[in-house]
C-alpha cells in the first residue's frame, strides 16, 4: 500500500487526539456546521427519504450490471476522443499517471480534490519522479503545506483551526506583506486564490477525481465549491480523471437524482456551487479545454468486494455525512483512524484495503448508535457491516486476550441460567454490601476502564430475579 497506515495504533492516536486542544476546537464546528446544515436542508425537501431510496436503487442497479456499464462508458469516452485505462492496483494507477506525465514532459501537475489520489498515494510518486503536484482545493492546499493527509473526505483540513491556517500561510507565503490582515477566513481564501491562479496557468497536466462517470455519454462529473476543479481540468493541455469503478451510473438523469442527495448530505447545500461535466478532450469548435483526456479507472480490490458481503459499501458516494454525525469521529477527528478513509465508512472500507489485522480497532470503535446509517444518502447499513468485520475479527482471534476472556466468562454464565441467577445474586449482594454507605464506586480494580473517568453507580443489592423468585415461590428460592 502506498500510504502508510497508523490504524494499528488507533487507541494511541485517539488518546493523542483527545488531548489536542487545536483539534478539539476545530472538531467543535462539525455538529454546528455540517450536522445543522444538513438537517436544515432536509427539512426543506419533503421527498428526501424517497430520494435516498432512489439513490440506493440506482447504485444497486449499476453495481449489479457494472461490467456492462463500464464497457458502455469506455466506448463513449473513446468515441469522444478520450482514453480509458483500467488499473487493478494502486501501483498500476500510479504507473499510468507517470506514463502520461512523461509522454507530455510534464513538470507540474495541478490537482483537484481526489480521494483516489490519496488512496493510491499519488503525490509521493509524482514527487519521487521529479513532477510537482500542486493541490488546488483550499483544504488540500493547506494540508499539502503542512505535509499532512486529509482528515475528512470532503473537508480535508477539518482538523485545523483558522489560526493554524493563518500561521501556515504566514510561514509559507513569505513574499507577501508580513503585516497583512488575515483575520477573516475570506482573506485566507483570497490569498490562496491569488497564488493558485499562477499555478493553474503554469501547469502541464490537470488531475481531478470524479463524483460520477456516466455510462450513456462517457461524461465525468465533479462537484466543487471553489471552482478550482474547473480550472484544473480546462486550462492544462492534458486532463487526467482518477476514479474508482463504483463511480459509474447509467445515465445523466441518474447522476442528477443522486446529486439531489449528495450536497444536502455533505454540506447541507441544495447543490454544490460548481457541478462540472467533461466529455472527452476539446472539440474543434470548443473555445477551450484540454487537448488530451484520460480516465484511469481503479479497482484496487473493489471488484472482489462486489462479490462479497461488503458489496453495499460500494454504493458510497463519499458525502461524509456518516463521519459528520459520528460521535466517535466528532471526538477524535479523522487522522486517528490511521488511513485514507475515516469515520464509519472508513471503518468498513479500511479493513478491506489494508487488511483486518492492520485495522481491527476501526470497526470495533463504534458505539453502534446508528446515526451513520440513519443519515447515509444511499442507505448503507454501516453498523451491520462493522459488525461483520467484528465477527471476522472474533473468529480470527484478533480481539485482545483480556476482552476475549471477559466475554468468555460472561458467556459461560449467560448460557447457564441457574448458575447465572445464583452467581449474580451472590456477586451483586457482595457488591451492594461493599458499596454500603457510598453512592458510587469510584475505583474498582476490574473496572478501571470505567472508573477512570466515571463513577460506577452502586448496585441496589441482590438481583431482580432472586427477589422475584422469593416473592413468587415463597421464602426459599
Amino acid at each position, binding site marked *: 500500500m502506498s500510504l502508510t497506515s497508523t490504524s494499528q495504533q488507533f487507541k494511541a492516536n485517539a488518546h493523542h487526539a*483527545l488531548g489536542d486542544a487545536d483539534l478539539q476546537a476545530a472538531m467543535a464546528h462539525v455538529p454546528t456546521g455540517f450536522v445543522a446544515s444538513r438537517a436544515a436542508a432536509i427539512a426543506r425537501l419533503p421527498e428526501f427519504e424517497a430520494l435516498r431510496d432512489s439513490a440506493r436503487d440506482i447504485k444497486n442497479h449499476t453495481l449489479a450490471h457494472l461490467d456492462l456499464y463500464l464497457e458502455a462508458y469506455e466506448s463513449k469516452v473513446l468515441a469522444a476522443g478520450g482514453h480509458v485505462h483500467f488499473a487493478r492496483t494502486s501501483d498500476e494507477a500510479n504507473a499510468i499517471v507517470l506514463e502520461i506525465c512523461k509522454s507530455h514532459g510534464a513538470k507540474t501537475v495541478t490537482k483537484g480534490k481526489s480521494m483516489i489520489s490519496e488512496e493510491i498515494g499519488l503525490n509521493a510518486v509524482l514527487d519521487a519522479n521529479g513532477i510537482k503536484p500542486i493541490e488546488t482545493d483550499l483544504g488540500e492546499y493547506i494540508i499539502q503545506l503542512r505535509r499532512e493527509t486529509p482528515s475528512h473526505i470532503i473537508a480535508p483540513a477539518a482538523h485545523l483551526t483558522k489560526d493554524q491556517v493563518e500561521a501556515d500561510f504566514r510561514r509559507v507565503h513569505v513574499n507577501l506583506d508580513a503585516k497583512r490582515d488575515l483575520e477573516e477566513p475570506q482573506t485566507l481564501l483570497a490569498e490562496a486564490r491569488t497564488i493558485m491562479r499562477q499555478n493553474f496557468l503554469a501547469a502541464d497536466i490537470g488531475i481531478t477525481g470524479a463524483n460520477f462517470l456516466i455510462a450513456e455519454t462517457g461524461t465525468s462529473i465533479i462537484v466543487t465549491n471553489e471552482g478550482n476543479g474547473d480550472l484544473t481540468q480546462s486550462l492544462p493541455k492534458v486532463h487526467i480523471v482518477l476514479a474508482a469503478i463504483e463511480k459509474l451510473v447509467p445515465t445523466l438523469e441518474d447522476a442528477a437524482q443522486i446529486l439531489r442527495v449528495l450536497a444536502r448530505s455533505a454540506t447541507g447545500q441544495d447543490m454544490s456551487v460548481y457541478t462540472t461535466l467533461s466529455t472527452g478532450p476539446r472539440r474543434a469548435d470548443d473555445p477551450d479545454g484540454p487537448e488530451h483526456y484520460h480516465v484511469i479507472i481503479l479497482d484496487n480490490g473493489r471488484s472482489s468486494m462486489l462479490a462479497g458481503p461488503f458489496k453495499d459499501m460500494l454504493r458510497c458516494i463519499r458525502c461524509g455525512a456518516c463521519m459528520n454525525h459520528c460521535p466517535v469521529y466528532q471526538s477524535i477527528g479523522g487522522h486517528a483512524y490511521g488511513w485514507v478513509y475515516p469515520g464509519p465508512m472508513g471503518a468498513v472500507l479500511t479493513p478491506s484495503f489494508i487488511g483486518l489485522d492492520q485495522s481491527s480497532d476501526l470497526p470495533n470503535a463504534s458505539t453502534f*448508535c446508528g446515526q451513520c446509517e*440513519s443519515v447515509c444518502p444511499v442507505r448503507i447499513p454501516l453498523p451491520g457491516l462493522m459488525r461483520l468485520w467484528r465477527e471476522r475479527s472474533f473468529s480470527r482471534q484478533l480481539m485482545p486476550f483480556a476482552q476475549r476472556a471477559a466475554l468468555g466468562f460472561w458467556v459461560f454464565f449467560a*448460557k447457564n441460567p441457574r448458575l447465572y441467577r445464583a452467581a449474580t445474586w451472590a456477586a451483586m449482594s457482595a457488591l451492594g454490601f461493599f458499596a454500603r454507605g457510598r*453512592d458510587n464506586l469510584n475505583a474498582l480494580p476490574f473496572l478501571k476502564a*470505567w472508573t477512570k*473517568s466515571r463513577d460506577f453507580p452502586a448496585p441496589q443489592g441482590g438481583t431482580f430475579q432472586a*427477589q422475584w423468585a422469593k416473592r413468587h415461590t415463597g421464602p426459599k428460592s
Partner: protein
Amino acid sequence: MPVENPMETSLTLTPGSTGSHPRVGLFVTCLVDLFRPSVGFAAVKLLEDAGCAVEVPLQTCCGQPAYNSGDRATAKALAGRIIADFDAFDYVVAPSGSCAGMMVKHFPLLFKDDPDWAVKADRFAAKTYELVSFLTDVLGVTMVDSTFAHKVTYHDSCSGLRELGIEAQPRRLLASVRGIHLIEMEESNICCGFGGTFAVKYDEISSAIADKKAINIEAARAPVLLAGDLGCLMNMAGRLARRGSLVEARHIAEVLADMTETPPIGREPEKQAAQKGASKP
C-alpha cells in the same frame, strides 16, 4: 412496525376481572437484574396496571454483548434459548430499547438462513416490545397514575430511537405524570457514549462523548435525568457524578410507575434529596 391494538377489548376491563389478560413475559435485562431491580418491579407494576398477567421466566442475557463483539455463535445460542423460553407468552417486554432492539431487529437476522428457526425468530420478534412503546402502541395506554413534581430532562437512547422508533411514546406518557415538567436538552438524540462494551474497550473516547452529553444535560437545568435504558443511564450518571453534578438519574419506568421512593442511580437512601412530590430534588 405497524401499530396494532389487539388488546383493545381487554383494556376496558379492570385488572383482576375475568377476561383476556395478555400474558406477558418480562425480559428484565441483565443490567436491571443486576444493578437496579427496582426498574424491573416498576415495569411489572406498569404492565399489571394496564391489565397484563406478568411472568418472569428464568433468563440471562439477550446476547447483545456477544453479538456486537463478533461472537455470532454465542449470540445465536442465547437467542435460541430466549425464543424457546418465551414461546408460551403473548408478548415479550423489556425495559430497554437496546435489548428489545436486539430481540426485535437482530434475532431474525441471526436465524435468517435457517428456515425452521427463521419463522420462530420472526414470530418472536413480532411479539416483542420495549416497555414504554408496548404500553402506548399495543395496550393503548394514554396516561399513567403517577406523581413526580420535578423538572426532568429525557435522553433518547440510540437503539430504542433508531431501531424501534421510540421518541414520542415516552414523552406522551411523561406528560400525564402529575406535576412533572419536561425540559428538552440539546441533542437529546445523540449517543451518550455508552455503546455496551465500547464503554470499557474505548474508555477515553466513551467518556469524551459522555462529557458532551453531560454538558447538554446540565444546560437543560432540570435536576432529574430520565431515559429508557439502564446502560446509558449508568454511563451518564457515572460521568455526571464524576463531574460533581447534582443531577439525579432514573429509569423512566420508575417515574411512570410512581415508584420513586428508591434512591436515584448511584445515590444512597439517606443522601437522597428528591422525595416524591417534593418541590426540589
